[in-house]
């Protein structure tokens, strides 16, 4: 039972990181109509900034630099590659994001080289025990920060001018343009927010129990994509739930892998994708998507 609870807690924490990534992915989808396959590179960019600056600046300022840097990178990617494609259909534009990802990934793996990089989180590998349930301080802080960010984000999404315009634009771009929404600015803001969310997730995902930053962080974003789809791809709340579901499922499958050995070693890694297939089989449009009819 204690094992189960600590796995559950670890899973929730991991899931909250996935949720941050998936929510960024979903708002980009809503704003630009593309699946951003370069999201993994955004995570890498964030963590790389911290890894390369924390020695000289200290952890706090390094995080600030990373947040700004990732936001700026996300904005630039949108401005240089996605904006010019706005008249194209979604699939070519999505493939452009794959191209961005190829370029960024080869650049960043070149920068990072082999081996692991420290991000210099002050809490390092400490753990805390709550009741009988243990968790790394990193994951705990991660869970708290993510929870705050998610609440803040949801409020922003519901109340702010950005959130309202963004939802209007996603519903009916033509009408939104007609009433004079500055779609360009809304889209740019969206990418910036997604970049910030990815950066925060990256900082906690490279901390304990993960030993540090390597290009493998990129794959984490891939796990967040199923989270986005499970939630219906267009729903921010769905992405949140999807992220948590996937995080918990992965944590449990990894924790109980001795019992799951008949499914093969390392089954935990593919669990998010198995969950995805099951959900799609039952509800192809995802758990939270209300698909209206299209107009003809």
């Amino acid at each position, binding site marked *: 039972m204690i094992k189960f609870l600590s796995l559950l807690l670890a899973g929730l924490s991991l899931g909250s990181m996935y949720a941050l990534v998936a929510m960024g992915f979903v708002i980009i989808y809503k704003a630009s109509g593309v699946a951003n396959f370069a999201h993994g590179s955004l995570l890498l960019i964030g963590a790389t900034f911290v890894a390369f600056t924390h020695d000289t600046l200290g952890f706090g300022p390094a995080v600030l630099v990373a947040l700004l840097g990732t936001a700026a990178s996300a904005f630039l990617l949108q401005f240089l590659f996605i904006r010019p494609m706005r008249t194209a259909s979604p699939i070519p534009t999505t493939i452009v994001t794959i191209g961005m990802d190829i370029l960024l990934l080869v650049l960043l793996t070149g920068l990072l080289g082999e081996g692991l990089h420290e991000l210099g989180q002050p809490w390092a590998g400490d753990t805390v025990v709550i009741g009988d349930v243990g968790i790394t301080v990193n994951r705990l802080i991660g869970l708290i920060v993510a929870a705050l960010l998610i609440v803040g984000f949801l409020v922003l999404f519901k109340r702010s001018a950005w959130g309202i315009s963004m939802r209007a634009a996603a519903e009916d771009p033509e009408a939104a343009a007609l009433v004079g929404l500055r779609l360009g600015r809304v889209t740019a803001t969206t990418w910036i927010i997604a970049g910030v969310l990815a950066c925060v997730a990256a900082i906690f995902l490279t901390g304990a129990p993960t030993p540090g930053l390597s290009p493998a962080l990129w794959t984490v974003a891939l796990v967040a994509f199923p989270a986005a789809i499970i939630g219906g791809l267009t729903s921010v709340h769905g992405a949140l739930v999807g992220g948590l579901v996937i995080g918990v499922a992965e944590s449990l499958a990894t924790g109980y892998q001795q019992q799951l050995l008949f499914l093969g070693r390392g089954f935990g890694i593919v669990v998010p994708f198995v969950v995805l297939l099951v959900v799609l089989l039952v509800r192809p449009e995802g758990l939270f998507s209300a698909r209206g*009819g299209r107009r*003809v």
Partner: protein
Amino acid sequence: MSPQTAAPLDIEGVTVAFGAVKALDDVSFSVQSGHVHGVIGPNGAGKSSLFNVISGVYRPSAGEVRLDGMALTKLRPHEVAGLGIGRSFQNVDLAGEESVLESLLVGRHDLMRSGVTAVMLGLPRARREEREHKARVTEIADFFGLADHLDRPLHELPYGQQKLVDVARAVCMEPRLLMLDEPAAGLDEAETDTISEIILDLRSALDLTVLLIEHDMGMVMKICDHLTVLDFGRRISDGTPSAVQSDPAVASAYLGTGEAAEIETGTAP
């Protein structure tokens, strides 16, 4: 074709809602075989939604549509099409590279039978089928005056001809019921006359029943045998063109839309 034969299309109590908007509200009417049946009404009255219900794109929350007594409302769009309902669209959106011939052949898809393996292996029967259907499509294109353009990419044609291609594609399905959503929108007077003639000729040459949405009152009054008028999703009038013309409910629905005068005089602006 006498108008007294069994009604091929029955619409009964159809309701469609989008959130708070009732696009269709308990609409009923029937379409007589061989008629050109007009559906008119101001913008947003629910005309296109009605077509979408008939062709299986929208599922109504209440009511039923029957073709020769058979319920359509549970079927998916391609199954409805397979029963002999051809449809053209209000907005032609033909940005593709596809040629006119290919666009028309799309309408034959369901009438052709060759499987994937047969066409990949280039089997003689697959080739023959393709040839035969091309011949028929060429015939239909000729009727529409499109025969010279068969090899041109669709987007190269002027708007009026793009609309014709869309109608011709629906005819290529060899439908019993042809549904046309504003075929004359954006056309000039001469072109509108041409499409009116085409509709009447098609009806007699192919034994078709035509369901026509159109804003051009001149055209509607000239070619329709029967009219149904929708306003805010409700059927407000139904009858012969002259009966509808003198229906006060219709006049008030159109009041202030600038089309009121057209209704009364039955002329195009």
